[in-house]
């Protein structure tokens, strides 16, 4: 049963899975890059990043590039650790 326990409900959605996957291999990604890669709408992506931020899995930095506001996301240490556990659990489940 312990394997099932490692499946993290917070990542159990296509968009959130995508966000975490991207942030695992990139130092950071901005809102537009995520939007482009995941094919999500603004509102949809915003609510999912919010959820991950609340769980302290990702870090959000708001800044200005020139005069344009830019939101940058990066995975926290906790986020990377938990996501790795999630992947491992998925792989184990498939192999069973």
């Amino acid at each position, binding site marked *: 049963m312990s394997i099932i326990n490692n499946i993290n409900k917070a990542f159990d959605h*296509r968009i959130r*899975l*995508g966000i975490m*996957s*991207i942030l*695992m*291999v*990139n130092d950071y*990604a901005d809102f537009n*890059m995520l939007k*482009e*890669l*995941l094919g999500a709408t603004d509102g949809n992506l915003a609510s999912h990043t919010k959820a991950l931020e609340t769980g302290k899995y990702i870090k959000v930095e708001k800044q200005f590039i020139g005069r344009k506001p830019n939101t940058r996301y990066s995975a926290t240490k906790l986020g990377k650790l938990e996501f790795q556990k999630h*992947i491992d659990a*998925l*792989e184990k*489940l*498939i192999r*069973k």
Partner: protein
Amino acid sequence: MESKKYLEDISEIKNMMSRSSRFISLSGISGVLAGVYALIGAAFAHVRLQQYSLIDPMEYYKRNSAPIETGLVVDLFAIAIVVMLAALVTGTILSIKKAKKSEEKIWNASSRRLVINFFLPLLVGGIFCLVLIQYHLSALVASTTLVFYGLACINASKYTLGDVRYMGIAFVLFGLASTQFLGYGLYFWAIGFGLFHIFYGTLMYFKYDRK
């Protein structure tokens, strides 16, 4: 039933990881064509060198200590630049086509990273070659281009198809080997840039493009 969903999750994770960090629209055919251009360029260079009766390695050695005719250097440079531009333009066009097919953006964070990391070692190598010519060490230019091109490929491979790394290693080893056969630089150059590109391009075409 459940495990099918998990399988989809895993493949989504893999897909996102590679799509977001690696530029995967690199076209195999463009590698083959780059090789063909290199061979054509090498043929032109060969003809030009023959006109200066420099194709005999011993003759080459004797003359190498003296400054080579400026006209020849300019011609060889022109050939090299035409070959490079042709390869770059072909590579860009074919990659754009491939990216469009898979509905990928061509100029994104990963392609930018690829270009920067590829051209950085290449630029250093190019400047180094100019220095070699400056000191009349042009016998080493062919080896140097091979070695630095190989290093550029190794460096860029982190941001694109992993096979580029092996091509880079092959180039570096081949370039180092060529330092022991001064005067035969053009042949090493032709085999490296010509045949290696054709070989790896074909390999990548069959591995990634034919789907």
